[in-house]
């Protein structure tokens, strides 16, 4: 027999030692041990009584204290409300003896401790545990045991649901019920009931969960008669394609029109667009869609409508009109202010993404599934926009999925198109963040498929507007080429609009300079003290002709036209906002010779008077005249030029300059971005004169079309200071011979020459540039250059044209 005692004499001795009793005899320990144990058991027994009468199954320290009080023993202090589990320590010398370390706590620490937060008041929350013996599946009640019912039971339930459906209701309800019965293997009977509508009763009342537990399934969704009929009407009208829409399906233009009317659903009752030739909705369909969009009771039907959407997409992949109708339905639901789609998003998104990215939609590659994809992209983007706030991960998930599809080389091109369209629809920021970094490798992969095997061909195709139909005489190759062209076009469109957006924003924000580091860097690296004057002159000279030529620049040559921009854009923006716009010019670069000239001039009362007059009121007609004359003065070959230059220099410090230059400045500022792009082309084939203009190697070439920064190689030869080509008229007048005899009006060469210099100082790969294009402080110039490199000049046509920009700056 083992010793029934838990407290051994050894324990007693150890305890005695712990309280400094060293003279405890063996016998005393032996006598004490059982007694101690008996007392302990008594206390535990009483404590358990207290716990039991407190209807608890957990013994607390409070119970032990109560038990001690019951026996007139002083309770143990310090253990109440102490949730830390006691830390047991092994007693030294006794192998199996543990005790709680009893730390000494200073009283001040307890008394000075901040008061704990007041606990929440105990209160009572009522709810229904069960009603007439059946437990409603509500939030307050315990969840149903998730264990699936045995297989046989489930089969029976499915059969019952099917039987109920067959016997029960008409039309849709029955169909849904049967569908669910078929799916019954996977689902619980209760869910079948929800979808089965009228067939619900059969499976629903059955007790679920463990035997003996009576739990009502949560989804006894009762639809009123009216709602059921409305649902049937909606499904009948939208579900089966009407002859009209079927016809439309074969007609691409018609498809476009269809989508147009979906987008105009908002204004459906305005009727103008809807009645147009493109509209192929029957009046009935239109009425139904309007109902869906307007009826506040639509929430009731949501589960059924989302299911309808899923079914339609699953069953109608070959029938574009059906899919269009589905998108319209979703769009209408989205527009309905009384409907909260949130709970059904998870079922709605997959069909939509299918519409967007399915491998093949419609019957054959020749049909216009592109429009459908575009439309789906718009809807997806709309959903992301509307529910992005509460479900911030929604857009992330969607865009991730799109990107993955795009990068997956095994996916067909239509899928890629859908992905690009979806990303583009999600907004310029998404495009910059996700699409642009992938652009270069993707285009490289795409290139072989393009017509002519090159981007240029595609550009031509896109530009030529031949995207409407597959290349004639295609065959398989032709289809692929066509598809690739579409993808290419979509990419171009996406990146173009992304940059367009950015540029417009930036222009509206009056061009923070850091966004155009490229040009600035080029300039900084090239300016030298010796050439300051030349620079100043060249600046004026170069800028004006370039801008002047803008209007004349043909589309393809526009790079040249805007090429001047970086030159002027580089200087700091107008320092003094108080300076009126007519005379606002960039502050000139610091120039020692000008400073000295000005110092000398200050002795001249006439000059100071002029200066003061202009400063006092820069916009008065007198001042303007004075400024213009000063400007002309600088062009004079005699020594007065220096006077004029010095005065202008000093005024320029205040941001005041002649009106003509101010005008140029404004225009050039706006054109800055495009100029940067043009700069990149300076290296390219488009600028035949570029090579002559500026020697290709390195920074030297960067005379920066009118940036007035002489190439470094030309430091010793003022004649070569690169202001030249584009501004040759002025520079000629200024006596600073432009080195290159560039073609008259050859804005392009000049710009190219300058831009080459701009791009050169920081030779970053296109990919790296694009990878950072999403950053707020990304160098727009660089990005534009990079994109232009990728897409060719056609890209530039997608950017805001210079004439638009000055307007923006207003």
């Amino acid at each position, binding site marked *: 027999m083992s010793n*029934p005692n838990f407290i051994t004499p050894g324990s007693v001795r150890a305890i005695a030692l712990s309280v400094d009793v060293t003279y405890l005899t063996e016998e005393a320990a032996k006598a004490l041990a059982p007694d101690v144990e008996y007392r302990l058991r008594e206390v535990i027994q009483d404590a358990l009584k207290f716990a039991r009468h407190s209807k608890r199954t957990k013994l607390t320290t409070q119970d032990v204290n109560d038990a001690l009080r*019951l026996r007139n023993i002083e309770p143990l202090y310090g253990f109440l409300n102490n949730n830390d589990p006691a830390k047991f320590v092994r007693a030294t010398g006794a192998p199996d003896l543990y005790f709680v370390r009893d730390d000494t706590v200073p009283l001040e620490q307890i008394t000075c401790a901040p008061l704990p937060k007041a606990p929440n008041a105990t209160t*009572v929350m009522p709810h229904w*545990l*069960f*009603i007439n*013996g059946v437990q409603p599946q509500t939030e307050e009640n*315990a969840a149903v045991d998730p264990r699936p019912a045995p297989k046989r039971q489930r089969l029976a339930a499915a059969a019952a649901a099917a039987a109920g459906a067959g016997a029960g209701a008409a039309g849709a309800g029955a169909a849904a019920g049967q569908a669910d019965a078929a799916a019954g293997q996977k689902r619980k009977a209760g869910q079948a009931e929800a979808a089965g509508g009228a067939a619900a009763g059969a499976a629903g009342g059955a007790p679920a969960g463990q035997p*003996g537990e009576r739990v009502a399934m949560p989804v006894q969704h009762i639809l009123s008669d009216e709602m059921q009929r409305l649902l049937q009407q909606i499904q009948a009208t939208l579900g089966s394609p009407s002859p009209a829409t079927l016809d439309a399906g074969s007609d691409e233009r018609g498809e476009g029109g269809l989508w147009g009317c979906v987008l105009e659903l908002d204004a459906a009752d305005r009727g103008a667009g809807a009645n147009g030739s493109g509209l192929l909705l029957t009046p009935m369909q239109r009425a139904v869609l309007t109902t869906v969009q307007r009826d506040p009771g639509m929430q009731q039907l949501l589960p059924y409508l989302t299911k309808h959407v899923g079914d339609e997409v699953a069953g109608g992949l070959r029938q574009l009109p059906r899919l269009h109708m589905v998108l319209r339905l979703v769009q209408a639901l989205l527009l309905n202010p009384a409907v909260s789609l949130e709970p059904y998003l998870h079922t709605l998104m997959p069909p939509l993404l299918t519409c967007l990215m399915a491998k093949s939609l419609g019957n054959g590659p020749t049909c216009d599934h592109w429009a459908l994809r575009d439309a789906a992209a718009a809807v997806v983007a709309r959903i992301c926009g509307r529910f992005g706030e509460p479900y911030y991960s929604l857009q992330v998930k969607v865009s991730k999925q799109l990107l993955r599809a795009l990068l997956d080389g095994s996916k067909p091109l239509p899928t890629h198109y859908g992905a690009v369209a979806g990303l583009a629809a999600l907004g310029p920021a998404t495009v910059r963040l996700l699409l642009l970094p992938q652009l270069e490798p993707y285009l490289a992969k795409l290139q072989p498929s393009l017509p002519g095997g090159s981007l240029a061909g595609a550009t031509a195709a896109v530009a030529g507007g031949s995207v409407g139909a597959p290349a004639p005489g295609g065959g398989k190759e032709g289809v692929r080429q066509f598809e690739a062209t579409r993808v290419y076009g979509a990419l171009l469109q996406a990146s173009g609009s992304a940059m367009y957006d950015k540029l417009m924003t930036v222009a509206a924000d009056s061009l923070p300079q850091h966004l155009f580091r490229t040009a600035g860097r080029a300039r900084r690296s090239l300016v030298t003290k010796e050439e300051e004057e030349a620079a100043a002159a060249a600046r004026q000279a170069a800028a004006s002709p370039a801008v002047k030529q803008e209007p004349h620049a043909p589309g393809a040559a526009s790079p040249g036209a805007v090429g001047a921009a970086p030159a002027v854009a580089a200087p700091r923006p107008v320092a003094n906002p108080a300076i009126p716009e007519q005379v606002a010019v960039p502050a000139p670069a610091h120039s020692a010779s000008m400073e000295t000239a000005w110092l000398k001039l200050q002795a001249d009362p006439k000059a100071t008077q002029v200066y003061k007059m202009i400063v006092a009121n820069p916009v008065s007609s007198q001042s303007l005249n004075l400024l213009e004359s000063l400007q002309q003065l600088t062009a004079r070959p005699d020594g007065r030029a220096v006077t004029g230059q010095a005065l202008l220099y000093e005024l320029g410090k205040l941001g005041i300059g002649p009106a003509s230059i101010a005008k140029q400045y404004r225009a050039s500022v706006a054109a800055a971005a495009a100029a940067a792009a043009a700069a990149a082309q300076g290296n390219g084939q488009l600028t035949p004169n570029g090579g002559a203009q500026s020697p290709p190697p390195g920074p030297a070439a960067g005379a920066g079309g009118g940036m007035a920064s002489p190439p470094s190689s030309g430091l010793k030869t003022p004649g070569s200071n690169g202001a030249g080509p584009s501004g040759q008229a002025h520079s000629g007048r200024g006596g600073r011979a432009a080195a290159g005899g560039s073609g008259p009006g050859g804005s392009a060469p000049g710009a190219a020459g300058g831009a080459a210099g701009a791009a050169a100082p920081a030779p970053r790969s296109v990919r790296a540039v694009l990878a950072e294009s999403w950053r707020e402080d990304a160098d727009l110039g660089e990005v534009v250059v990079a994109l232009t490199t990728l897409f060719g000049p056609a890209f530039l046509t997608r950017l805001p044209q210079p004439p638009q920009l000055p307007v923006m700056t207003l």
Partner: protein
Amino acid sequence: MRDSDWDQLFLQYIRKRGLRDVEERFVQHVRQPPAPGDKEEAAAVAAGVEMASGLIDDLVCFAAGHEAAVYGDAYEALVGWVDSCLDMYRPELRRLLHPVFVRLYLTLVDMEAGREAAALLARYRARVLATLGGMRRAAASDLTQLAALTSRSLLRGSAFAAARLGLGPGGPAAAKTAVALSPYAHDLLMRWLHTGGGRMLPLLSVVNSCLDLQVLEGLPKGAPAAPVPDDDLADELAGGGPGGAGGPGADEAGADAGAEAAEANMVNRTEIKLGLLQGNVEDMYREQQEKHKAEAAAAAAAAAAAGEADPAAADGQEPQTKKAKKAAEKAAAAAAAAAATSKSVVRGERIEHPPFLPKLPDEVVSAALRDIGLRAPVTAAAPPSCAFFTFVNAKQTLNCSTFNSDGSKIVAGFNDSSVRVYDMPTISQHHALLRRSRRGQLPGGGGTNPDGTPAPAAPSADDLEECEPPGTLYLHGHTAAVHAVDFSVDQRLVLSGSSDGTVRVWGAEFGACLAVYPGHVFPVWDVAACPLGHWFASAGADRVARLWVSERTQPLRLLVGHNADVDVVRWHPNCCLVATAAGQADRTVRLWDVREGKCVRYLPCGRALPGSPTCLALSPDGSQIAAGSDEGGVTVWDLGTARRVAASQPSTAHTGAVWCLAYSQGDGCVLASGGADETVRLWRNDSGEALAAAGVAAAGDGTGADGEGGGAEGGEGAADGAAGSKEAGKEGAKAGKDGKEDKGNKPEGPYAQLGRYRTKSSPVVSLAFSSRNLLLAAGPFHRRGPIT
């Protein structure tokens, strides 16, 4: 016992036997200090002595000499010790008492100490009857035989005594009674016997001679392999009631008819009146209904007669008018007869309203009558609805709660010694406000007026949550945890019992303590107000239940007899009886007569109800009592026959303690139980259903007869009645079918489980049927899963 004691004993013994040589040698041996080498020898000798227990017995008997009184004292000491021992081991140790007593008695008789023996016997019998309410049949027969043996000569001739004294054919070994003890109980016993010194010697000898102590490893209770004798007692007692003629125990009872002549089950043979009081609310309601019906029938009959008469009058023919008059008379007579018969159908007997009980206040009666009229019928076929009241932020401090009759107020007792009254309408309103403000915040955003200024702020959800929720009344006064609360019958007083040993009465409306009843010394575990008011009962850790009248601060009756803490006390519906239950060492449910304070029913839990009883419920007709235990069992007894009606099967029983039980109002067709396993379970009470069906059928018959008698227009009543009885029949058939169908997972029997409903994470602390038969349940919310 020290060595010197032994030496003295030995010396005395040797001298008495006249063994001089041995005495000399012994003295010599004792006087000389033991040589170191002798130690082993001494040990060996000691071992030898241990082995020769007979010698020791002789020694001990000798030492005790002829002091008969010592025996009596020793036995008293043993009884006292056993009663104060740890609860856990007390049942085991108590099993020692009977064999020890028998042996002691015989020894006393053998010593020719007849007087002491008789005194011992009388005391023993009294104690057994008082504390156990009866005794086992075997024990009773033992006592009768012992009472006959009054002298040594008789002793010699009795085979019974010979066997008990070890003189029979089997020798001393056959005289031993096997008693199984757990190791610690054995250890306790041995230590107690050994530390008692010389006083314990006679007891030691008796224990050694008459008991075969078997030490079994493990906890005291968990040994199904070795049947616990005490449970036999329970079963025998249960089977030996006065109604033993029927039921499964009938054969047994017949076989032991002889033994029944003894006092066995004396308590349970007491005649008690279980009927409801005359003029109780249910009867009043039924009478009212019948009156209405009779009136209606009479009116209808009269109308019919008049209708017949009218055309007759138009015709101006007298004989027909006479006929009509006759018909009217007939109808009236039939109606009266019907009323009389239906009165005779009143179920069960009714007892007179005892003079010491107050009458129900009129407003209570009228409210009750109204509620009965609106009461939802609750049967197995139409299970009740349950509203669950979850205490949030209770943090394990909720001890008890109770509802008023319509569930609009909840009183809860907390561990922090407060009693709180929750007014549900106010609280619900507050919650609705909270919900609205929470919802309002979402669409509103920052609510601004059209002119751009921020809208006047409605109280925000946070504010509302922060502030003390309204509708809670705190009753402070107790100085320790409150373990029981109850509403008085008029819902105006709240009773509470606390660990500080007092019962307090509070005004539920204005929240002040009205009276303190400091009768209990130890914690009060339960309090129950009399269904008629004025009286209440309390039970506590001092093993006594007390009956109080609210105008006195001293109890009127002490209900003494339980061997352990009285855990529950409940009133019988007729207010003349009180039921109590005690756990741990006692494990019995008892019924007490209020007038005499005597125990009238003794219902041991036995094996059918494992664990200690934690809650009681009496059926509304007063014939049955249900008890739940802390191991999840629910058992129902019939009070009249003291027989077990049903016990929950382990497969359907609660998996944790059962904290509360409640019968549905009216016929008590459904019993609800709730417990620590976070479920509420419903059980079908067939006897209640039968009652209900009988009632319906009787009503149907009555009205049917009425219709027949009334002749012409059978009246709606008849149709209703017929439909009702038909439906009842259908329901019965359906129930039967259900029973057959559910054979697989539902136990057959009178109390089959109807349903099991899990709460989210709240043990069910209290259950009650409101006066309109809505099941009300309450429990604290525990975040961390089920507590088992």
